[in-house]
């Protein structure tokens, strides 16, 4: 009874920490609005909240956790020559960095790096899009850094788990053993039913990696670090492109036959079906990216808007109700984090299964 209460208290504290850290950010933003670095007048609180949410959700060239813990990340550009410098150089001076004769500045609108002249001016066309030239940007931004951190964590966790099997004769010991039932679940409920006994082993590494990567990255997005990896369409589309490449390259003759020349239908239908099926192969990975991206992005936006609501209602009742709603939504986000990883993995397994399916005779309908 007491132990249970202690568990619940720990969970509540952990969630409150992330909300409270978000509040700290907001308070700083309120103070900064007094002297905005572009010299504009003080923004209304709604616009401040929008700025803050944008700051949380978009990639950036420095890693800013809370007030004080902040470190700049290296910027690596290729612009007819390699330019490497630390992104802290963008802070000093007036935002223009000079490197081997070229000048670069970060645009305030979308955080990308543009090539400018010595004054650091970025031109905008009539729709508001930046028109300066962009160098090829290979920087280690916040997202890249987090991918490397998650990769390292996964590597250490699972190599430790596999070593413990060797040491303890088939029984897993140590912290990694929490993941053994999950790995077995992926093998028995996702891989074998969809891909079949004969071929599932070839795809298991990819399915396991995808599942744990998406799950851990979604969980990191819920922490107060302010990282938002899967809410970035570049990352989800990269994962979906990987699935698409694996399906295409492992498709056997039966698979291609089903796409271009569907057996057992009249010839006229075959010609109609071919472009539709071809489009289907492209739409399936597209749906994978959009599903993961929109789920995670929308979840983060809604959650942070509700936290921002706490500041718009400067009363006891409104703020505490908003806090409660944000807390409840955070718990739902936990479920969504795992669910999205599961769905991505299941659909990838389904596509692989369709790609390696053997031909089996269809009985007559009557």
């Amino acid at each position: 009874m007491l132990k249970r209460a202690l568990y619940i208290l720990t969970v509540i504290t952990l969630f409150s920490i992330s909300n409270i850290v978000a509040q700290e950010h907001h308070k700083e933003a309120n103070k900064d609005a007094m002297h905005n670095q572009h010299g504009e007048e003080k923004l209304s609180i709604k616009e401040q909240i929008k700025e803050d949410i944008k700051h949380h959700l978009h990639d950036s060239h420095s890693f800013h956790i809370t007030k004080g813990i902040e470190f700049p990340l290296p910027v690596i550009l290729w612009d007819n020559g390699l330019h490497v410098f630390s992104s802290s150089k963008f802070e000093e001076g007036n935002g223009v960095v000079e490197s081997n004769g070229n000048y670069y500045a970060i645009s305030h609108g979308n955080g990308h790096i543009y090539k400018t002249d010595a004054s650091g001016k970025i031109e905008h066309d009539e729709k508001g899009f930046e028109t300066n030239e962009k160098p090829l940007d290979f920087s280690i931004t916040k997202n890249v850094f987090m991918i490397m951190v998650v990769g390292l964590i996964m590597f250490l966790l699972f190599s430790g788990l596999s070593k413990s099997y060797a040491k303890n004769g088939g029984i897993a010991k140590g912290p990694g053993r929490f993941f053994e039932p999950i790995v077995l679940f992926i093998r028995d409920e996702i891989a074998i039913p969809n891909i079949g006994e004969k071929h599932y082993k070839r795809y298991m590494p990819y399915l396991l990696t995808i599942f744990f990567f998406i799950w851990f990255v979604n969980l990191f997005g819920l922490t107060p670090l302010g990282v938002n990896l899967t809410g970035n369409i570049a990352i989800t589309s990269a994962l979906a492109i990987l699935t698409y490449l694996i399906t295409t390259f492992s498709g056997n003759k039966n698979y291609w036959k089903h796409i271009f020349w569907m057996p057992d239908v009249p010839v006229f239908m075959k010609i109609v079906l071919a472009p539709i099926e071809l489009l289907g192969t492209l739409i399936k990975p597209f749906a994978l990216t959009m599903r993961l991206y929109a789920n995670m992005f929308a979840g983060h936006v809604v959650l942070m808007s509700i936290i921002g609501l706490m500041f718009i209602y400067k009363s006891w009742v409104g703020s505490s109700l908003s806090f409660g709603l944000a807390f409840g939504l955070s718990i739902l986000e936990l479920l969504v984090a795992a669910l999205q990883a599961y769905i991505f993995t299941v659909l990838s397994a389904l596509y692989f299964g369709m790609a390696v399916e053997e031909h089996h005779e269809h009985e007559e309908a009557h």
Partner: protein
Amino acid sequence: MEIPRIVGAGLIVIGAGIGIGRIGGSAMDAIARQPEATGKIQTAMLIAAALIEGIGFAALFAA
């Protein structure tokens, strides 16, 4: 000026809601008939729900 957009978003949510509601309903019926198949039915229900939500979110983004 934004009315068509808002109406479109509302329609999308109605569509997704009806779809997932029907799946949930038939899943409940199936579980009531055969409680021992609950695990499989839950899995299938989640997959179908996620597919529908995928379309819903993608369309919501376009609107």
